[in-house]
């Protein structure tokens, strides 16, 4: 029952926010996300104590109805969603206020996005995953376009077409799986699939994987991401980079852990190889980017690459999965903090460029402290969540004797350091020209949000014990 409310509640307040208008929309969103946070924490406690929680929607179980199920991984990601969203609601409110914009459309879209995310994390069959992926994609595209600027509209259209091609591929895969096995339930499929499935099932797997890789913006399918995440409004970019791309990655991971288990092992090197390419290419582009938000968006391309290094290491067991979960959490929080900081810089200086950051650190110390903390997590400095994720990844790679991967993880930490310091050095430079730059006043609350998100990304590393416990108790496999 509890888990159904996680989907109904955001849908409910989204509708109310649509009717009530912008002023009350912000209050509704805040109240809604607050209650969701309590629900998510209750769910996590329940899963940690008693194992996975299931619910048959409307009393109709599978195959006719829709089953929802929360295990350790889903509960963790639902909690993460609230931890990222709650501060961002406050941020968005202050951000809209500072610009005298009403942003009426943002609140209902945020509710739809959250409902889609929760439904996705709780899905137990391939088709429901398709529907939730589509809902998520539509809400995300609308959020990108909500600013109404030309660049945003063009990026949103490009994002939409990429997302539609991706879900088309995924759906064709689902159609073939249903045609061959007569079911789309993950549990039923993992029971009926033979150790060596036939060509159609393999083809279906490949189609679904390609679709999901496009949605996760894995190199070389990343072309839509920098434009969409770089041009969207700052709070929207934060949500997209932190949560939306993680959702399709979650689907890949879920399929790999339940349906595509033993026989996918020979193919695990492919996503890992592309992940390696993503790290190198994304970091390189981040080093060259001239716009601040573009730099952060390319950093997302690079950081998503890490997640795909995980697949050849899954055979090691819990360690690899924990590394993946920590990377998802640490990156989500750090990237939300970075986009929040970028939004503050943009608001203060009125332009989105790395060069324009000169001397900003003196004017907005808290923002740049937050940016530095988040950067610490991306680079993988202890005790941040990013550090622990990379440490465990290297640990698992040593167990599997994947030496090249260790070199890649270490080298990419250095690359991340290079692009983070590119921004920080710019912000701390030219202190003597400080008065020459006319800065707009930025609400203090926005700075605190950026700081809270960055601090949370460091806390992930310190609270890793509780996270491992939740993952383990949930029995992800």
């Amino acid at each position: 029952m509890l888990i159904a409310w996680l989907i109904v509640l955001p849908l409910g307040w989204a509708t109310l926010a649509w009717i009530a208008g912008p002023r009350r929309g912000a209050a509704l969103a805040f109240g809604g996300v607050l209650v969701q946070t309590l629900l998510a924490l209750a769910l996590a406690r329940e899963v940690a104590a008693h194992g996975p929680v299931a619910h048959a929607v409307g009393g109709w179980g599978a195959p006719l109805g829709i089953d929802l199920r929360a295990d350790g991984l889903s509960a963790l990601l639902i909690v993460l969603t609230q931890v990222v969203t709650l501060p961002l609601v406050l941020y968005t409110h202050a951000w809209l206020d500072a610009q005298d914009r009403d942003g009426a459309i943002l609140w209902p879209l945020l509710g739809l996005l959250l409902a889609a995310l929760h439904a996705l994390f709780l899905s137990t069959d391939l088709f429901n995953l398709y529907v939730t992926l589509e809902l998520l994609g539509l809400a995300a595209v609308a959020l990108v376009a909500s600013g109404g600027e030309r660049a945003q509209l063009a990026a949103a259209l490009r994002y939409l077409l990429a997302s539609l091609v991706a879900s088309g591929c995924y759906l064709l895969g689902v159609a073939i799986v249903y045609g061959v096995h007569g079911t789309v339930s993950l549990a039923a499929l993992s029971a009926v699939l033979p150790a060596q499935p036939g060509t159609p099932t393999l083809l279906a797997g490949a189609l679904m994987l390609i679709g999901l890789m496009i949605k996760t913006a894995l190199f070389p399918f990343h072309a839509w991401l920098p434009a969409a995440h770089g041009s969207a409004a700052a709070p929207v970019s934060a949500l997209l980079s932190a949560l939306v791309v993680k959702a399709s990655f979650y689907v890949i991971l879920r399929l790999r852990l339940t349906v595509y288990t033993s026989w996918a092992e020979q193919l695990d090197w492919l996503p890992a190889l592309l992940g390696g390419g993503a790290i190198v290419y994304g970091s390189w582009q981040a080093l060259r980017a001239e716009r601040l938000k573009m730099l952060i968006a390319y950093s997302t391309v690079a950081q998503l690459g890490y997640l795909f290094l995980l697949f050849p290491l899954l055979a090691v067991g819990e360690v690899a999965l924990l590394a993946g979960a920590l990377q998802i959490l640490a990156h989500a929080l750090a990237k939300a903090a970075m986009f929040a900081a970028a939004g503050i810089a943009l608001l203060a200086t009125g332009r989105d460029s790395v060069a324009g950051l000169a001397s900003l650190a003196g004017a907005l110390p808290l923002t740049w402290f937050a940016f530095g903390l988040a950067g610490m997590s991306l680079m993988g400095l202890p005790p941040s969540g990013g550090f622990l994720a990379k440490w465990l990844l290297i640990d698992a790679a040593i167990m599997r004797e994947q030496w090249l991967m260790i070199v890649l993880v270490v080298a990419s930490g250095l690359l991340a350091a290079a692009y983070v310091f590119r921004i920080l050095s710019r912000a701390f430079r030219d202190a003597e020209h400080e008065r020459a730059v006319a800065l707009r006043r930025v609400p203090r609350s926005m700075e605190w949000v950026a700081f809270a998100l960055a601090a949370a990304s460091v806390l992930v590393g310190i609270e890793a014990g509780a996270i491992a416990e939740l993952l383990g108790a949930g029995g992800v496999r």
Partner: protein
Amino acid sequence: MSSGLFYAILGCALFALGLAATLLLREALRRVLAFNVMGSGGFLVFVGLAQRDGVVDPVPQAMVLTGIVVAVAATALALALLRRLEQTDAHEP
């Protein structure tokens, strides 16, 4: 060859055509239309493959109906974005 398999093969051909056009065409409106052809191909495979020995399976039909609703919504959003883009371009030459 059963009729179900025939539909599935036809669906695959439509899907491939639509996919190629969505990726290769430049004009956005044509790409939106091509996506619809691609989606219809996928739906045809879904319904076609699930027919076994002439017996119709209702479950994929319900799923395809949901898929059509999603595709209509996506098309509407794409068209709305396109219109807004054109209006913006008309105001700012």
